[in-house]
């Protein structure tokens, strides 16, 4: 008789119960004692159904073991030895996939000189200097970009337009123009446009704040934490820190702009790795609604790059803050650690990604001169160009990109249980590290698995102790553009 063996999943405990996260289906199941016992025995070695029933006979009647085996088999948590697992099909996205988010780089200029900047720093991929690319987007290009966005949004009623830079607000006139034009054109077409921007907050003048509040523009502020951390890397050209300039302006913005929750976006480096302190400062002392953290994108030899020990320490701190999140969620209180919330939402929906993000698919970046790239981080790079706003997307280039970057072709990921959520990680990060967008980001695999495990536990614990909390993720039908960083 054929033997049974475990199939691919990640098992974990939460709220005193056993759970499995099945791969690649991304389903989360809670196990009862019988299914736990079956999996436990099969973890030791593969065995036949009758052996299994015999070994568990003291605990469960044979019928129950049989029933459990049947359920586990149908969920594909276990399978028969020698019966090959059906490979997940390499399913390509449908042609002419609608564009949901366009990131418009309205300028390449920035008034800060953050040491780690991927656009201007040591690891930049686009030659933003020497007049090679225009520094400011013109009204003409902004108009063409909006037309492009509405054209490419297909049947979608809602399009997201995100302004980015450089320092976005250095080209405030074109931003205003683009918004007005987008509203008019969208209204004519029976569509709506949602606006957001990312800024370093240095140029938040009262009239700009007023404009953002009145127009319900989503705002994400790049800020690294309290003064000593902000001033470590986020500096002006003369080297002086920016904290004292931005803090009062942000407070002003938070006071006036109440129409949308405002988030902070923190870049973590080897020298600013005190996550709880940063979080506390940005939420309690400054007043941000949410804080999202991302490790700096850099080649490994930079002194601010986060090395292995750094990732370990970062994971520990993320876990501590995630536990604060859990405590708040159990009491239905808001907690602004957006990294957890975003991940448990994906877990709840059972997302199993073919691509790490929507770049080149539902999201595209537009450079100052109207070139369309994978995302804002590649905007202006000729090697990662998908077309122009005037001539549209070169479908052959796009299809070629999607073919080469599908998870089915990432051999390194094929045995990793975290691949439904990670899918190899950021293209830009991979390009900066390894010089190739299609490479999985192997330098942070351990960290991703550790973090995914943490979020699975939080999700599962909520499902046991406060399932009502998770209902909010059911209601969210339309994808909301999160902050762009």
């Amino acid at each position: 008789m054929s033997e049974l063996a475990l199939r691919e999943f990640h098992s974990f405990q939460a709220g005193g119960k056993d759970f499995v996260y099945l791969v690649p289906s991304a389903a989360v199941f809670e196990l009862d004692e019988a299914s736990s016992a079956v999996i436990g025995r099969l973890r030791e070695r593969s065995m036949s159904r009758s052996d299994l029933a015999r070994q568990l006979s003291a605990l469960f009647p044979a019928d129950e073991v049989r029933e459990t085996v049947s359920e586990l088999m149908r969920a594909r948590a276990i399978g028969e030895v020698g019966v090959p697992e059906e490979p997940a099909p390499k399913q390509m996205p449908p042609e002419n996939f609608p564009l949901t988010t366009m990131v418009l780089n309205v300028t390449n200029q920035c008034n800060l000189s953050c040491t780690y900047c991927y656009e201007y720093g040591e690891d930049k991929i686009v030659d933003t200097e020497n007049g090679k690319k225009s520094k400011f987007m013109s009204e003409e290009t902004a108009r063409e970009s909006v037309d492009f966005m509405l054209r490419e949004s297909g049947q979608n009623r809602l399009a997201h337009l995100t302004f980015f830079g450089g320092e976005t607000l250095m080209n405030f006139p074109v931003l205003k123009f683009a918004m007005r034009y987008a509203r008019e054109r969208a209204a004519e077409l029976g569509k709506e446009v949602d606006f957001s921007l990312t800024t370093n907050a240095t140029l938040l003048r009262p009239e700009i704040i007023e404009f953002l509040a009145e127009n319900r523009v989503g705002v994400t502020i790049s800020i690294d934490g309290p003064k000593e951390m902000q001033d470590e890397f986020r500096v002006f050209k003369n080297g002086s820190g920016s904290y004292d300039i931005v803090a009062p302006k942000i407070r002003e913005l938070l006071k006036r702009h109440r129409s949308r929750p405002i988030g902070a976006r923190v870049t973590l480096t080897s020298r600013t790795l005190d996550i709880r302190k940063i979080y506390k400062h940005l939420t309690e002392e400054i007043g941000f609604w949410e804080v999202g953290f991302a490790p700096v994108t850099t080649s490994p030899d930079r002194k601010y790059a986060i090395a292995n020990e750094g990732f370990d320490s970062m994971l520990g701190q993320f876990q501590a803050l995630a536990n604060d999140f859990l405590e708040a969620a159990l009491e239905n209180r808001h907690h602004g650690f957006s990294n957890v919330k975003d991940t448990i939402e994906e877990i709840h929906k059972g997302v199993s990604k073919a691509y790490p993000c929507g770049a080149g698919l539902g999201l595209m970046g537009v450079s100052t001169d109207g070139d369309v790239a994978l995302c804002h981080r590649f905007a202006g790079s000729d090697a990662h160009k998908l077309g122009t706003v005037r001539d549209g997307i070169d479908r052959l280039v796009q299809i070629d990109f999607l073919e080469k970057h599908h998870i089915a072709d990432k051999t390194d990921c094929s045995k990793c249980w975290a691949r439904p959520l990670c899918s190899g990680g950021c293209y830009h990060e991979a390009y900066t590290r390894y010089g190739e967008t299609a490479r999985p980001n192997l330098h942070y695999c351990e960290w991703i698995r550790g973090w995914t495990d943490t979020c699975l536990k939080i999700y599962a614990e909520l499902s046991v102790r406060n399932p009502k909390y998770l209902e909010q993720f059911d209601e969210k039908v339309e994808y909301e553009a999160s902050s762009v960083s």
Partner: protein
Amino acid sequence: MKHLRSVNRKAQRIENDVVALQGPPQQPAAAPHIPLGCSLVFSPGWEADRNGGTAGLCQPVERDLFDCHTGCFWPAQVPDQLNHAPDWTAKCAAAQKDWRKIDLVFP
């Protein structure tokens, strides 16, 4: 499922599929008894009709006639009920019983 609790939405979808597989097979809704038997359908020797019934078996005369008349695309040796002989089978309520009452129609 008894031994697995589906937690997220994907698990719920899997459970729905599994439950559908575990349940008794769905009975097809009772269909009207239509005697059929021709090259269009698989009915070797007419051991049973398409619903598994045996009521209309072994009546080759009326079967031939009615099959060619109703279900066949081939120009058959039966009257053209659509154009010339709309009432051709008016007196024949049940083919097994009334087949003698079918009108004779001359072209």
